[in-house]
């Protein structure tokens, strides 16, 4: 799953400027998270058309990168997220950050994970029968 990351100064109205650019180009966001410090922020989004998002945001003058993240389906019940984290931890995989989707089907939580070893994480989760979603799965939502 491709995530778009945007560098933002920690100033009023900066986020709205980005969402405006995306809206103007009909780019739909299905997950969003902001990490911020006193000086700057990092906007992380999952969109329906990452290539176009990258292009239009760079054109608008933003510092933008793409990162590969894992979209994991977690049962929406107590302990659901814990189980996934536990599997990753036992597999010696560090989670750099995580956040959830805005939209989701009933009874299922979709969580995005940025991990240090993507390939290993995918294998371990597969072994434990945790489903990892692809772009198509997400776009179908």
């Amino acid at each position, binding site marked *: 799953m491709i*995530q778009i*990351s945007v*560098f*933002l*100064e920690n100033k009023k109205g*900066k986020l709205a400027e980005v969402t405006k650019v995306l809206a103007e180009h009909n780019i739909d966001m299905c997950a969003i998270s902001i*990490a*911020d*410090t006193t*000086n*700057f922020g*990092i906007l*992380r989004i999952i969109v329906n058309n990452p290539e176009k998002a990258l292009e239009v945001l*760079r054109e608008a*003058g*933003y*510092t*933008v*990168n793409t*990162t590969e993240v894992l979209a994991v389906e977690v049962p929406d019940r107590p302990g659901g997220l814990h189980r996934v984290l536990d599997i990753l931890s036992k597999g010696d995989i560090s989670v*750099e*950050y995580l956040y959830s989707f805005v939209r989701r089907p009933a009874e299922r939580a979709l969580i995005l994970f*940025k991990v240090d070893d993507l390939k290993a994480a995918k294998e371990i989760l597969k072994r434990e029968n945790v489903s990892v979603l692809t772009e198509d799965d997400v776009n179908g939502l």
Partner: protein
Amino acid sequence: MMANKKHHKSWLKNEEAKSSRNRSYYGIKEGVVEMYWDKAHECMDRQQLKELQSRRLVETVRRVYHNVPYYRQRMQEMGLVPEDINGVEDLHKLPFTTKQDLRDNYPYGTFAVPLSEIVRIHASSGTTGKPTVVGYTRKDIITWSELMARTLVCGGTTRDSVIQIAYGYGLFTGGLGVHYGAERIGASVIPVSGGNTKRQIMIMKDFGTTVLACTPSYALHIAETMEEMGIKKEELKLQYGIFGAEPWSEGMRREIESKLQISAIDIYGLSEVIGPGVASECQYKCGLHIFEDHFIPEIVDPETGEVLPEGEEGELVITTITKEGLPVIRYRTRDISALNYEPCKCGRTHVRMKKVLGRTDDMIVVRGVNVFPSQIESILMEIGETEPHYLLVVDRVNNLDVLEVWVEVSNRLFSDEVRKLEELNRRITNEIQSTLGLSVKVKLVEPKTIERSEGKAKRVIDRRKL
């Protein structure tokens, strides 16, 4: 017809070789090819050199006193007569000449010969108002060609080189200056001038260019355009780059050298003094040899004008001692450098000036420390930024100078992880602090935060109310 032409050319080259064979010296030392154009002068004994400089200085002072009303007036104001100047040791007594002084005498007021003796006129673009006009006599053009031949040979050019001159031709001294020097050596000259990068690359590839002469920033632009076009450095025959006309950092040198797989040589000059051909790096790249049989350099405190001891950083001041058309006495270059008189491994005895660190115009003094934007630029390039955009903001808080450095975060430096960006911020801070010996606050900012005027970015904002 083609064959004829070719034959004709090689015949010319042989003739040229005959006349210059006695002058150049080729040898190999520590794996570096050593070449001199004019060994007798370039490796002259320093005592003899000093005597030569003194004789030429005395003669120059006498000439400007009698031929240039401007210089006569300045010397009279200081109570000086030509007889007061008996050698290099008296140089400090003479008045400085600034770019403004030349401009005030626009266009020909500081020429030392009648216009009938002038065979070439160049001008340097002024950012404000009128340009500075410089004139060359026939002999000046010969001197300049000789000095440019020295420069190019110093940088690796030989009569077998194919040199592409991508400096601008015209009023700017870069293009024609390099051109005359390259022809003097007998290299094959491609006078392409600046601009049209894709065509430059096509020519470089098809004509088998071995030496590229242009500004360092243009060289980097060529390298980047090549990447975009999918042309690999291996497809070129480039060996050397002769780069000058603007200050550039060691980081930029490494970038150009790895991208074009060449040896990048720094050359120095300014039109008011002669154009390119004032100083050049040799193959050891440890400072630029100033051609001291034609120019006397000094380093002065940019604020007080006081001559600084050997090795100290300050403003480079140059006196020409062989020029006829426009001799300049103690010309304030506004370039920051330092002089090193230690013998160089290449065998040249001429003093080496440190790669220009920046301009006095850009210098700021923070808590007593001289700070140049170029120092920050080098650090950012060191960290991996190719075209750093940054701004130094100085303010005074509670009677203490505070220096903030704003750095635009490029796609190259950006990370989606907070930890990594904070690490980047810390790294830049530490590097700047250890280089400047000053505490600074680094702020990462969005692209285009820093104002760009006509492509040239403003590097300093001084908010102190001094």
